[in-house]
């Protein structure tokens, strides 16, 4: 027994979790087995009134070990066993332990003679660990504003399947539990108490003592949960009560409408909630365990866990980092105090990095600093930032028009206008004043890095960093290696991204890098369809059904048709005769040049907007310029065109070695532009759909719409050999 420590204090047992080999406790098979044995000891010991379950670490624990779940699945599969049975067996064992704690040995009929269990969490308790807390009779949390409590499972492809779904609904009702279950909302102890997730918040030093005190003073009835007592009714009503009917009706429709029904874990959770609400607690838990097992069996869920949890973490922990000493940034010089520059300044200062914000005159630089202050004020208003923190963060930002101000900076992020000449001038002026070993990063979304590096006298210290807008909200950062970019620059950029708590992908230099390379064809495909007379509503709704968070014409309005026009013109100029025009060019030209419709920024694009900038309806005259065709394509074809426009570019990026690691291709696509998260990313999407099936779709679309849908050789090869992208490219040590 190495994961738990068992002690007693009078008639109270104290079971303390402290895994020797990990910094954060997680539920593993051993942990569960040992806890089970300790609980049995408590229940068998007549001298004990109950127990306190706590942790010796700063936090209670991070959840269930997802790697273990994958292992159970793999073992059962390789042994030829029944995978569903093996997984259900594991899930049910955890359920049984938690239920044993909850019943506390009370007589099933009289409900008498039960022992109480109190949970005492010093800090964070998430997922399967928070579900352990929910099974206990009273929950104590230490005063620890940094602690996070809740059930984030649904965000990574799962749902709370260790009793958490059933217990939370019985505690709070469907409406009360909705945010925690459907949004994976996490709260600090104070808010958890207000939300009735936690019973008491106590000083850190008194945590265990208070819990012990409660156990000593508890009554027999404290060991009986409300739902195990007579006359219990679910708050807000079960499905077939007048109030409950409306709640379930609304909850399902709202979820269905918002998710398009593409998330297996959400659907399964809703079924567990509905079916569980119709039966007693023990039956409800069994139902929840069955639905949870069904999610574990669903390849979409595995793909989500792989990208959104395992690989995202691996990337954030430096999977692609060259082996180099720590390159943490102390002082960053940011050139260009516009929206991007100010956003980068904000996230840097917030991470404790000193910022020198430079623009061509003091007023422009000050304006950038004022934008930082504005973002901080928003935080203050939402009570995420205190006035003291605001002052401290803002004090780190120095605004100046003098390049010499950057003489102490170890990293430069240049974020001036996207014009190679201006960028070259800035590069030269900056390198004249910064330390010789400083790294120079250029923030660009379209200009090749190798070309920009020509202006640098230290091209090995020159790198591209592509932030997404708005910087403070978008979590992906694309790091681009130019031909001569050295490892030290990559390490520096990665360490910087880690400091500002974003997720990096490292790609090689090519037109539009990775993200824009995939996004632009997606937006273009939608516009090509407009030019063909496909109903714009069908295009937009098809994208939503794919699980894209923002439909393509709407996204074009958001990023602006002006930008689209600029990219089109620049690409035409650069490619010359090699440029292949499409219907998208006609649409952009007509709307932007012909009608002055720039998108949301001027209140008119594919959509009309009201004075407040709220999106109204599709522009009614769109059909005048691009008449609606009598024959409309099948929904599936529209979906395939929109998804393949992105997926094929991701594959080509891999083929051309722009994308080095497919994990980055998938994680980057979800974080960067919201590529159908349910699929785990574009390459996972191919694996889920089946590479041969994808080749067949490509062939059909190529015949109808031309070579932009031709299956890349890499895809054809993988399909021909019966392989998958993850089968071929997933680094072995990180298999999930």
């Amino acid at each position, binding site marked *: 027994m190495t994961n738990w420590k068992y002690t007693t204090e009078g008639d109270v047992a104290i079971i303390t979790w402290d895994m020797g080999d990990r910094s954060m406790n997680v539920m593993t098979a051993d942990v569960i087995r040992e806890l089970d044995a300790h609980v049995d000891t408590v229940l068998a010991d007549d001298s004990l009134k109950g127990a306190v379950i706590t942790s010796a670490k700063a936090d209670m624990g991070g959840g269930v070990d997802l790697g273990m779940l994958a292992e159970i699945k793999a073992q059962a599969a390789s042994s030829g066993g029944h995978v569903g049975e093996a997984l259900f067996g594991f899930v049910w064992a955890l359920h049984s332990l938690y239920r044993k704690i909850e019943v506390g040995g009370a007589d099933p009929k009289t409900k008498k003679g039960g022992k109480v269990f109190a949970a005492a969490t010093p800090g964070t308790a998430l997922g399967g660990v928070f579900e352990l807390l929910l099974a206990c009779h009273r929950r104590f949390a230490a005063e620890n504003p940094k602690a996070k409590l809740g059930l984030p499972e649904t965000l990574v492809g799962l749902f709370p399947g260790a009793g958490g779904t059933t217990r939370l609904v019985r505690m709070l009702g469907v409406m009360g539990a909705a945010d925690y279950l459907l949004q994976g909302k996490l709260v600090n102890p104070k808010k958890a108490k207000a939300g009735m997730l936690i019973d008491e918040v106590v000083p850190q030093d008194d945590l265990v003592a208070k819990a012990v005190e409660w156990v000593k003073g508890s009554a027999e009835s404290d060991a009986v949960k409300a739902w195990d007592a007579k006359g219990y009714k679910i708050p807000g009503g079960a499905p077939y009560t007048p109030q409950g009917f409306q709640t379930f*009706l*609304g909850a399902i429709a709202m979820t*269905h*409408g918002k998710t398009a029904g593409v998330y297996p874990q959400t659907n399964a959770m809703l079924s567990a909630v*509905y079916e569980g609400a119709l039966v007693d607690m023990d039956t409800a838990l069994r139902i929840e365990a069955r639905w949870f097992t069904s999610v574990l069996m669903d390849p979409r869920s595995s793909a989500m866990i792989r990208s959104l949890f395992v690989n995202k973490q691996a990337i954030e922990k430096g999977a692609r980092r060259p082996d180099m000493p720590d390159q943490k940034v102390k002082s960053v010089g940011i050139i260009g105090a516009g929206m991007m520059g100010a956003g980068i300044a904000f996230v840097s200062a917030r991470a404790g990095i000193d910022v020198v914000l430079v623009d061509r005159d003091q007023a422009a630089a000050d304006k950038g600093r004022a934008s930082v202050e504005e973002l901080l004020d928003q935080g203050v208003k939402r009570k995420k930032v205190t006035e003291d923190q605001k002052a401290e963060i803002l004090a780190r930002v120095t605004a100046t028009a003098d390049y010499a101000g950057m003489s102490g900076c170890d990293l430069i992020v240049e974020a001036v206008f996207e014009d190679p000449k201006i960028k070259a001038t800035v590069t030269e002026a900056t390198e004249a004043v910064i330390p010789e070993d400083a790294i120079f990063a250029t923030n660009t979304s379209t200009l090749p890095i190798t070309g920009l590096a020509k202006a640098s006298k230290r091209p090995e210290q020159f790198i591209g960093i592509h932030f997404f807008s708005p910087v403070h909200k978008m979590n992906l950062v694309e790091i681009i290696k130019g031909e001569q970019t050295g490892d030290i620059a990559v390490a520096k950029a990665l360490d910087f991204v880690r400091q500002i708590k974003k997720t990096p992908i490292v790609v090689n230099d090519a037109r539009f890098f990775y993200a824009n390379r995939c996004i632009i064809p997606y937006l273009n495909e939608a516009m090509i369809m407009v030019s063909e007379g496909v109903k714009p509503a069908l295009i937009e*709704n098809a994208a939503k059904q794919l699980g894209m968070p923002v439909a393509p014409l709407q996204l074009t309005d958001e990023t602006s048709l002006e930008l689209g026009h600029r990219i089109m013109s620049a690409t035409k100029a650069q490619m010359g005769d090699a440029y292949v025009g499409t219907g998208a060019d006609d649409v952009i030209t007509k709307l932007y040049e012909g009608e002055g419709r720039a998108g949301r920024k001027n209140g008119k694009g594919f959509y009309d907007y009201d004075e407040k900038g709220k999106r109204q309806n599709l522009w009614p005259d769109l059909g005048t310029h691009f008449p609606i065709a009598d024959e*409309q394509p099948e929904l599936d074809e529209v979906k395939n065109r929109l998804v393949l426009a992105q997926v094929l570019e991701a594959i080509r990026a891999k083929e051309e070695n722009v994308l080095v690691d497919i994990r980055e291709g998938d994680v980057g696509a979800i974080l960067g532009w919201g590529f159908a998260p349910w699929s785990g990313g574009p390459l996972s999407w191919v694996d889920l759909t089946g590479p041969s099936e994808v080749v067949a779709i490509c062939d059909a679309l190529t015949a109808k719409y031309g070579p932009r849908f031709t299956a890349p050789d890499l895809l054809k090869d993988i399909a021909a050999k019966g392989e998958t992208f993850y089968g071929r490219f997933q680094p072995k040590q990180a298999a999930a």
Partner: protein
Amino acid sequence: MTEAYIFDSVRTPRGKGKKDGSLHEVTSLSCASTVLNALRDRNDLDTREIEDVILGCVTPVGEQGGEIARTAVLQSGYDESVPGLHINRFCASGMEAVNLAANQVKGGAGDLYVAGGVEMMSRVPMGSDGFAIAVDPIPAMKSYFVPQGISADIIATKYGFSRDDCDAFAVESQKRAAAAWEAKRFANSIVPVKDMNDVMILDHDEYMRPGTDMQSLGGLKASFQAMGEQMPGFDAVALLKYPELEKVNHVNHAGNSSGIVDGAAALLIGSKEAGERLGLKPRARIKHTAKIGTDPTIMLTGPVPVTEKVLRETGMSISDFDLFEVNEAFASVVLRFMQAFNADHAKLNPNGGAIAMGHPLGATGAMIIGTALDELERTGGGTALCTLCIASGMGASTVIERV
């Protein structure tokens, strides 16, 4: 093959389906017994001759539960040897009872049936029997479930019916119903509801608003806009099923959709031989029956495919019908029927419909067959098509031919 004939048809007046409705004080069984006894008394019937009493009822809980048909048989004083069968096909239950009886007769399983339906919506609220398709995530998501009003609005959007189109249809329904009552066109079928002392409770359809005009309807708010566009947002679900639509145009409201009312209806159906044996005169032949399933999201378009099925199976064309009775669940449902078949409004619901007089769910299907029969007799017409849209995406139809 044996033919099935309608010998008689009766219905109660329709009471407002609220606490202040005249029939609110009458039990479902009393109302059902009223029509059963009327058939017996009007036809001087030895009830031992009846093979079965089939009653439609959509909300079979509480007093409408526990197999209401058998209880109604016992309460009405029919011979105890007559069994009872309760059936439910939502809004077409009353029609399905008639069709089932007719097809039993045609197949030789008994030669005399009572078929009809009852629904006391003021006493047993719609939906109180549970409705899993709305709240169980599996069927709800599989069927892209939205409430009927949203479905009616999808029909209006998809097939291009404006708010004015729907309101104009409603105004006409009110006008026709008022004129029909004025001319006593329902007199032959109406059985007044009286108390145990033979004191009158209700002798006319009380839901009607004869003065309804475009202006008065114009003031009503679209009933399903808020639930469609805001909470919980059913339109988003509708657009998943109908992605070619940009948005749902909400046009239906209380004034252009069917009224919630109380009432019952029953028909006496049997073979020619049974009629001869018992001295009953056939009034019409049940020429054809049909039912069909259709998309559950738009839900209420069933009258179109079920009529297409009737045309296919009978070899008839739409011009062969002298009369159409299409249940006015929502104005857009009937407008869609007229649009699909280019049907003449003059021949469709000439005496108004459920928008004016109300829609007692389990009974309406039987009522409209009776109404069609009276109208054919009045006008000397030959053949009528009766049809209803049905919840969860179904359609039902009965074709009757005067003899």
